[in-house]
């Protein structure tokens, strides 16, 4: 899901994105995604496999100014909150935003953090 979402957001926002951490001296604005994966509903007699997977996805947007990242945050919410469909071959059943936080990070940059819960079939 990380790679697929990275490609999707790259194309959507037109800015660089990374998984888990960003390299030093990354040009801003940039985004970083990280996720946690858990099994969805157990299904009987399905060779132990669940219906799909639940992803807890965190997207951090980092920039030198608030204005450089705020519109990107809105674009992500508009695109992903309530989304269902295909992201790079992953069938997303539903996607809901859990929360949104904005703050100044330890490097004195502006940062927005958006959390989503995404359920997939595969």
């Amino acid at each position: 899901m990380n790679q697929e979402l990275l490609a999707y957001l790259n194309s959507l926002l037109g800015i660089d994105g990374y998984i888990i951490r960003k390299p030093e001296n990354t040009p801003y604005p940039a985004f970083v995604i990280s996720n946690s994966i858990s099994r969805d509903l157990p299904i009987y007699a399905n060779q132990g496999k669940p219906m799909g997977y639940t992803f807890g996805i965190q997207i951090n947007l980092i920039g030198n100014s608030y204005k450089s990242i705020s519109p990107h945050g809105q674009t992500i919410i508009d695109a992903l909150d309530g989304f269902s469909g295909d992201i790079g071959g992953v069938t997303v059943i539903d996607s809901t935003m859990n929360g949104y936080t904005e703050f100044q990070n330890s490097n004195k940059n502006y940062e927005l953090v958006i959390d989503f819960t995404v359920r997939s079939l595969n």
Partner: protein
Amino acid sequence: MAGIGRGTRGINTKLLYSLTTGAVDPSTFTLPVGDVVSMGDLADAANTTEVTIYGEGYVNTFTTTKNIGQLDFEFLANTTDTGQTALELLYKNGDTASFDLRYSDGTGESDYMFDGQVSAFGISAAADDIVRYTVSIVVHGAATKVNKT
């Protein structure tokens, strides 16, 4: 091979059906119901009666008629699943069919087969959950148990 043994996991249980009533041979059950997320207990229980005998200080409790009653299931609603569609049709027509709960632990397998009717077929759609069919099956008489040989 034999019946189920120690440590059998419930998640491997299958619900199978046959449109022929009175089926008590596991090999006749080839049609599964898919996407089962909740499976009711096969709760075979006897009614009891109390008998008091003059001069005895205690009540005597005896078992009388036995009753399996009703099994409740939940499925992820899927109109392309043949088994779920068959249960819906059984409910609509009020027909009796044979059902089989097949418990397995890898090599061991035990089948509990019974005749029954679908007594309820509902659909639930909680806002934060998956749409499910809720189905109840009422059991006629006793279940037949067969361990794999």
